[in-house]
């Protein structure tokens, strides 16, 4: 069948070709390389839109098209096809990735204008887009893993893009290593699938799940969750995300806010069949989501670095999504809904932060900002749109998406619901704090810094993303998003709520208003010190949040130091015992060899004697064997 939807591979091929072209073309492409990169991404978006329209024009039960491009490998019982599935879920992701991706490409043209390695930056961005599209289009867990590792590679390359900064190099390494831990979970999960089902095809795994024992299904769920934790910076593998802010800001916006870090949520939703079959795995997902939601929010409250505050917020918002995904069919669609709206408003705010940094000479400390609304009006208004969206101002995208998650959480369990409610309040607090410290109040600019608005190539993407942040909620109109996704993730059946939904919505608004008011009282009305109070001057809770709830210390104590000890031990063992044995053995052989050499006298008479002796021994041995 010659179907337009069979051409989903074009989506991947375009940015991949862009990446290869930019990486292999010489210096002469420095002048226009960024346009190639942007065009590749934009073309992919246009094609994605065409396919989306084609998909929407079909019957609801005919909206999943799997295309096998070729057989990746075929060994014995295992056969893996390079196959892509274009369905409702991946279609949404394609639009998000290529759409936001293209805007960020455009923005980067201005942001990276002075960087001598801009062409390479665009090559990596294209590589990322191609890998991310592979991830969401994959019809097989192994193909998905290919994209999964591809985005990991792109993320590594881009976090460490300013490799001359040791902090950037270290952050890239940290992200890579921590992601490895999660990836191991995925690898084992894939191996489990192969062992028990003999396939890694997502659809066939889904149909094979009922035949598996509970233990295996739960194991699969937990292992995939481990993978999701690594990629999506969920507790306990969260520590890399804040360091990843060392990368250029467009990277933080695209990879570490809008798309890649949500891959974990995608994985869980895509593996719905596995989670539906295991309550224990779902519960673990909910627990991880809830803990991360609160931890991220707490970190966001204490950071003075605008990007790290936003990174904490990202952790927290992904926590919401993970939690929603853990709620089963009731939550999958809302997890994706929040994922998309978050993609809009968080990319918007990261790019806004980048614009602020661009205007203030790459300063990231919010204590050096203040009163930027007049100097950077476009940035201010667009950022304000993102701000209102994330705190859940009525009518804006974040309001709809977060409200639905909180509602579903209450339907699942009151305490989980209260946790999400508290999170909403804290979100309002830290975002208001960020807003107040950056754009309002008194000027605390450093000497010689003259904040100015960014060029149009940067502000236009901001305006577009701000519009999307405001309007993203339309996807919920007439339950469009839940109906659209229902064939993939299953029908949502409504849980009985402890109180009417409107009461919940109102209480969310009250909590959010309280958070805003508290932050305003602390940071808006009062003067913000240009120098941060030292650790001694703040309470233990601030200290803890500043130190990212001691995530690094925990990693250090639990993993790094024991591993270091182990390595030292192994090295010592290797040096003293193994190497000793080896060189001892080698010495033994050397001595034996020299002994043999001495037997080789060079005298033909002694050779003849050896020959004679050998003949006698051989004859004796033969006879001895027979007689015995």
């Amino acid at each position, binding site marked *: 069948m010659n179907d337009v939807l069979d051409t989903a591979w074009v989506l991947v091929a375009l940015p991949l070709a862009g990446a290869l072209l930019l990486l292999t073309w010489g210096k002469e492409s420095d002048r226009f390389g960024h346009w190639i990169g942007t065009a590749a991404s934009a073309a992919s978006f246009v094609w994605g839109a065409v396919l989306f329209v084609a998909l929407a024009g079909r019957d609801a039960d005919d909206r999943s098209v799997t295309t096998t491009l070729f057989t990746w490998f075929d060994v014995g019982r295992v056969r893996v096809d390079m196959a892509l599935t274009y369905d409702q879920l991946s279609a949404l992701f394609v639009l998000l990735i290529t759409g936001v991706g293209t805007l960020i490409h455009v923005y980067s043209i201005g942001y990276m204008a002075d960087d001598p390695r801009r062409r390479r930056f665009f090559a990596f961005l294209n590589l990322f887009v191609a890998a991310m599209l592979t991830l969401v289009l994959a019809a097989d867990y192994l193909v998905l893993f290919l994209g999964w590792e591809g985005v990991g590679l792109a993320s590594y390359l881009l976090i460490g893009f300013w490799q001359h900064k040791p902090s950037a190099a270290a952050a890239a390494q940290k992200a890579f290593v921590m992601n490895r831990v999660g990836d191991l979970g995925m690898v084992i999960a894939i191996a489990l699938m192969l062992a028990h089902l003999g396939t890694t095809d997502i659809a066939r795994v889904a149909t094979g799940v009922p035949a598996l024992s509970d233990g295996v299904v739960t194991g699969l769920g937990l292992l995939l969750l481990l993978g999701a934790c690594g990629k999506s910076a969920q507790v306990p593998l969260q520590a890399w995300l804040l360091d990843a802010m060392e990368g250029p800001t467009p990277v933080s916006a695209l990879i570490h806010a809008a798309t890649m870090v949500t891959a974990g949520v995608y994985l869980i939703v895509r593996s719905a069949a596995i989670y539906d079959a295991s309550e224990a795995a779902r519960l673990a997902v909910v627990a991880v989501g809830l803990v991360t939601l609160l931890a991220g929010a707490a970190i966001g409250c204490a950071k003075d670095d605008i990007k790290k505050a936003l990174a904490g917020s990202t952790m927290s918002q992904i926590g919401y999504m993970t939690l929603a995904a853990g709620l089963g069919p009731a939550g999958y669609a809302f997890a994706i809904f929040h994922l998309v709206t978050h993609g809009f408003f968080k990319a918007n705010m990261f790019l806004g932060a980048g614009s602020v940094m661009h205007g203030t000479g790459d300063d990231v400390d919010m204590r050096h900002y203040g009163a930027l609304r007049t100097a950077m009006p476009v940035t201010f208004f667009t950022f304000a749109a993102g701000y209102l969206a994330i705190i859940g101002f009525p009518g804006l995208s974040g309001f709809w998406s977060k409200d639905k998650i909180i509602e579903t959480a209450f339907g699942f369990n009151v305490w989980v619901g209260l946790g999400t409610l508290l999170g909403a309040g804290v979100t309002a607090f830290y975002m208001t704090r960020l807003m107040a410290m950056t754009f309002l109040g008194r000027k605390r600019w450093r000497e010689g810094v003259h904040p100015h608005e960014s060029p149009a190539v940067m502000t236009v993407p901001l305006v577009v993303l701000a519009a999307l942040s405001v309007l993203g909620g339309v996807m919920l109109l007439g339950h469009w998003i839940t109906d659209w996704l229902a064939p993939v993730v299953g029908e949502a059946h409504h849980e009985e709520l402890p109180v009417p939904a409107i009461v919940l919505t109102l209480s969310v608004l009250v909590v959010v208003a309280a958070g805003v008011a508290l932050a305003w009282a602390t940071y808006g009305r009062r003067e913000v010190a240009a120098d941060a109070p030292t650790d001694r001057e703040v309470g233990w809770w601030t200290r803890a949040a500043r130190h990212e709830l001691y995530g690094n210390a925990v990693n250090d104590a639990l993993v790094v130091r024991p591993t270091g000890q182990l390595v030292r031990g192994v090295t010592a063992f290797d040096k003293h015992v193994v190497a000793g044995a080896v060189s001892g053995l*080698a010495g033994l052989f050397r001595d034996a060899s020299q002994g043999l050499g001495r037997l080789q006298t060079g005298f033909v008479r002694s050779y003849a004697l050896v*020959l004679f002796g050998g003949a006698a021994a*051989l004859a004796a041995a033969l006879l001895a064997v027979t007689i015995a």
Partner: protein
Amino acid sequence: MNEIPAPVLEWDLIAPLMVLGAVAVVGVLLEAFVPRGPRFVVQASVAIGGVVAALGTTIWTATRTDVLDGDVLARGQVAAEGALSVDGPSLFTWGLLLVLALLSMLLFAERRLGGGLSAFTGRAADAPGSSGEAEATRHRLEHTEVFPLALFALLGMMLFAASTDLLMMFVALEVLSLPLYVLCGLARRRRLLSQEAALKYFLLGAFSSAFFLYGVALVYGYAGGFGLAEVADAVASRTQERPLLLAGVALLAVGLLFKVGAVPFHSWTPDVYQGAPTPVTAFMAAGTKAAAVVALARVLLVAFGGAEWDWQPAFWAVAALTMLVGAVGSIAQGDVKRMLAYSSIAHAGFILVGVVGATGGDGITSVSSALFYLTAYGVATIGAFAVVMLVRDASGESTDLDTWTGLGRRAPWLAGAFALFMLSFAGIPLTAGFIGKWGVFSAAWAGGLWPLVVLGVLVSAVAAFFYVRVVLTMFFDEPRPDGPLLAVPGAMTTVVVTVAAVATVALGVMPGPVLDLAQQAGAFVR
């Protein structure tokens, strides 16, 4: 009057031998009649042409052999009144010997390296260092008899591998040995060493031949015949006088194991390999071993196959000792040619592991595994010695391993090829040596010799040590300022090194066709 009936010869079956013998005789005539100027070129061309013709005839003969009915796969038939067996293993060995000889003849014919003169002395009768020698060099004399001599040796090897009669086998042994003794003494450089090697080889070879002959006599006394088939029948039917038989087996084995280079009959190997002209060493190391292994396997499996349980334990010990001594001995060697000599001893041990497994049946058999190993070992050996010919200093080849340090920096392709041969010797996957080792070990495993296989694998590790050490020396040490000159390789040597390297990789990556050929050769025909 009684007429002596004329023997019936199957000319079509023994055509390769006839062609080669005829060309060798023509070579002798050429020596007498062709003037000195063009003689070298004519002799080399005739020898190479003769080998190619014999190779073509062998292939022609091989296509005409029929698969025999029976439990085990076998093809071909006994010919020449029961003296020769033109069977699968014989034909494979002939083909292998001819290919190896072809490569060796190219090395024999190489004249670019020694300033336009071959690797052989100008006038062997002159005392080393005498004025006569200087005069011979001044007149650019060359011994062109080396070509017919090598062809006779080759004929002997082919006969040796195909003999099904102990007397025939003895004749073949002498035909192959005598020309080699002479060839060993003909080096142009370091003539004293060369002559010493030749004399040692001759004395010890004669000594071992005597053992072989005594063994023949004892076995005749037991079986009442020389044919391997007759001996096999006697072994199967007679249960008395076992000691006579076993003493005969032991003495026969001495002569064969001497040619194989197995411990404790190996003492000659390092000295002779080092002293002989390098092309001769290459020819002898690759060819003699192939012929002797096949002959040994034929004697053990055909004639004494019925007494397997009696001789196997002693041969296990020989195989084990050979591997060990070869591998351990090479560690302390500082001379490349001596190192290669010990390495060839170790390889003899690995091949013996496969042979004494005495495995028949459907899988990889003792014979086919040995045949493949000989192929892998043969090409890598000739290639390695060809490289040795190219690394020279003012006094000829620079075989001191110390002078090879950093060779990889100065001649990456050449050192790369040598490294490849070393890795193949070590049995690293994707080289021919790996498949060879895998073959002999699995044949021995199938024969129930797992302790020998375990030992073999361990010894392989020891052996890998010094092969890898050579690679390290060449590539990871700084070149010495007084390092050897690298002779510009002549076309001949380049061809040999290239062919050997390509074959080593091809047999490692795609062993299928040759392995298949070795397996299709089937069992010995008696």
